[in-house]
């Protein structure tokens, strides 16, 4: 019971913060409270959302992935390279983007599990490697001239932006997976106590490999979606995306020490960051100040949360 209560309280608390921010914005701006703006927020958060869901898996195993932003760029460039009109079917660039991301993630996972190198270091290395590769593949220039079939991915389906649908689908699948799959349970066990999980017969290495691989795959998806949205493969895209994604997950109650966290928490974290970004934009706050304010809110939210958890 106490655990359940705290969970509810936590989600409830975060929801209240989001509603409060929304309420303030509804009164201070005339544009916040509109269907158009809500659609806008959803579209804006979808890429960070997909990344956050992916990195939730890694954080749950007590790991970390700092290479998200760079891999977004590399996947986007790889996707765009195969997306020139009339060359391939639309599925080819999509597959190339997804596989590029998955390969980077798996490589992270292999080095973490087989090499025993700390995830922080491995993914820090991948961060600069993937960025370098993106620049090499693209020759340092944006890869333009993408087919309409692919850029249509940034459009609407039944009035809902496709990136938002991707985000929703990914979130639901991840939520269902962590709840109902044996592998999902194993992820919590490995993050909660790796040695105990191993002693209980959990295939710890395979579980971690899966988490990094899946995170990579979703990063690839984010790369494809971003490329479709900006209609180019940008080697410099995705700078510091990993920070927003990890911040969202941590705000959502996932422990950096692993083993604790939920997808619903992550969604709320993504939403909070999205609403804050949107609100600051609408209020016309300069981007310099935006960065400061966002940082304060992230630290403040987690601080409040931890204080609540301790009491």
């Amino acid at each position, binding site marked *: *019971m*106490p*655990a*359940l209560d705290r969970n509810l309280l936590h989600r409830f608390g975060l929801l209240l913060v989001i509603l409060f921010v929304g309420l303030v914005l509804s009164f201070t701006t005339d544009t916040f409270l509109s269907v158009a703006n809500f659609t806008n927020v959803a579209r804006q958060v979808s890429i960070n959302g997909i990344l956050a869901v992916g990195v939730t898996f890694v954080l749950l195993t007590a790991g970390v992935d700092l290479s998200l932003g760079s891999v977004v760029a590399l996947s986007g460039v790889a996707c765009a390279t195969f997306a020139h009109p009339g060359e391939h079917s639309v599925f080819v660039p999509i597959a190339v983007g997804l596989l590029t991301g998955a390969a980077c993630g798996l490589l992270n996972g292999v080095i973490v599990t087989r090499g025993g190198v700390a995830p922080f270091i491995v993914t820090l290395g991948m961060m600069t490697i993937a960025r370098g590769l993106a620049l090499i593949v693209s020759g340092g220039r944006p890869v333009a001239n993408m087919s309409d079939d692919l850029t249509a991915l940034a459009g609407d389906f039944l009035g809902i932006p496709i990136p938002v649908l991707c985000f929703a689908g990914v979130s639901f699948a991840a939520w269902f997976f962590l709840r*109902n*799959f*044996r*592998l999902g*349970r*194993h992820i*919590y*066990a490995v993050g*909660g*106590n790796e*040695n*105990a*999980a*191993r*002693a*209980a*017969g*959990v*295939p710890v290495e395979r579980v971690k490999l899966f988490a990094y691989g899946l995170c990579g795959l979703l990063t690839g998806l984010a790369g494809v979606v971003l490329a479709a949205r900006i209609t180019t493969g940008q080697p410099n895209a995705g700078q510091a995306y990993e920070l927003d994604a990890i911040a969202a997950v941590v705000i959502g109650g996932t*422990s950096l020490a692993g*083993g*604790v966290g939920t997808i619903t928490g992550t969604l709320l974290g993504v939403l909070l960051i999205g609403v804050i970004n949107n609100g600051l934009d609408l209020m016309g706050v300069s981007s310099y100040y935006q960065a400061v304010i966002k940082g304060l809110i992230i630290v403040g939210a987690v601080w409040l949360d931890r204080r609540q958890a301790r009491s």
Partner: protein
Amino acid sequence: MLRALELRKDFGGLTVLHPTTVEFRPGEVHALMGENGAGKSTLMKVLAGLYRPDGGCVEWRGSQVVFTSPHDALVAGIAMIHQELMPIPGLSVAENITLGTEPSGRFGRIDRNAQLLRASELLRELEADIDPTLPMRSLTVAQTQVVEIAKALGRQADVILMDEPTAALSDHEVNALFRAIARLKACGVAIVYTTHKMNEVFRLADRISVLRDGRLVGTAAASEMNPAKLITMMVGRELADIFPLRQPPTDKVLLEVSGLTREPSYRDVSFQVHRGEVVALAGLMGAGRTEVASAIYGMQPALSGQIRLKGKLLSIRDPQDALASGIGMVTEDRKGQGLIPALGVGQNITLSALRDFSLGPLIDQSAEASASKAQMVEFAVKASSPTQPISQLSGGNQQKALLARCLLGGPDLIILDEPTRGIDIGAKAEIYALIQKLARSGKAVLLISSELPEVLSLAHRIVVLRRGSVAATLDAATTDQETVLRHAMPL
């Protein structure tokens, strides 16, 4: 010299220590006895400045004091050996022992030579053969415990609070500790001592205070007490002989280990375990008991030798292989290698056998829930619900949950490494009964325990290890503690 005056402590609205008044005198060993959750550790932690009292006060040398941190208490002269070991794994043994009291050399630097010297003196006082330059992480649980004791001894305190200092120790180290305690007593140090081992209390204590459900039941001179009376005071009821009767084993060989070797831990270890039999691995700390068990369970496979189960040669590379072959294990280090603290009791129990409650890769939630509930009932795991995080349970209930996990998959051979460490006498009795029940049902148990009475009463046969080799195989019915020890001691 140290007095608890009407001391009270609450946790989240629950009073875990009702107003308690006890006095601790210099040159005296004062044992605090009680089941888990009786309030012994809480009382000690308040005295050591770790917890702030919610009522009453601590009187120290005639004046009331408020310790706001363990540091305050240490400065005043009160040191504590904690039940949960808290080593700093990255530092050396010597650095751990002198932590916070590092001898300073010139320019405020640490005087490394003095540090090493002091550490080795303290270790020698405990007759421990541990190299103080080793990194802490390379030590076994028992060695870590010895280092923690050395650390407290090095504080030159006037009061030393010892919360189950011998939980991880074998008889040899226990004896060394007792000799050190005798020397401290002679110097006028007051010792406050908790343990779950009955024989220690009467060897050591001058006075005994019994706590039950957070209340002081009474304090008496040890000479006025006896084990039966003490148990009655602790549990509030008469407890019959807690060791159940052994049934004779069958002659069907279940496990056959031959020539198991992993230098330098153990070599050429061979023995058999029959169906219906409880075999104990006995030996001093570092004799290789846990290492041999870990090899059979695949946590650290042997480099050579054979393991046969039901006559079939097994190749066990990790615990997954062992579980699939029908070997289960409850590890010695409950916190480090047992519990997944954030998961619920139910999910902890089903972790090893989750495949049995799955449809393909999917967990069958209702099958899992009913299995975990059934296990909780069968093993008498007390928790508010299956979703309660296992970290919130008492040690005894955690241990029963881990046993439930181990047995859910239906293993034929069950390895139990120190299954009763640090749990109260009620839970111990339940685990003893369980071990005999397993044997009666045709399974086999390989037991490791540092408590010789436990070994002698539970096991059919005792395989004594000495420095990694089998020194003797004894029939438990015809042997005694002295014989086991004689074989276990290095010549």
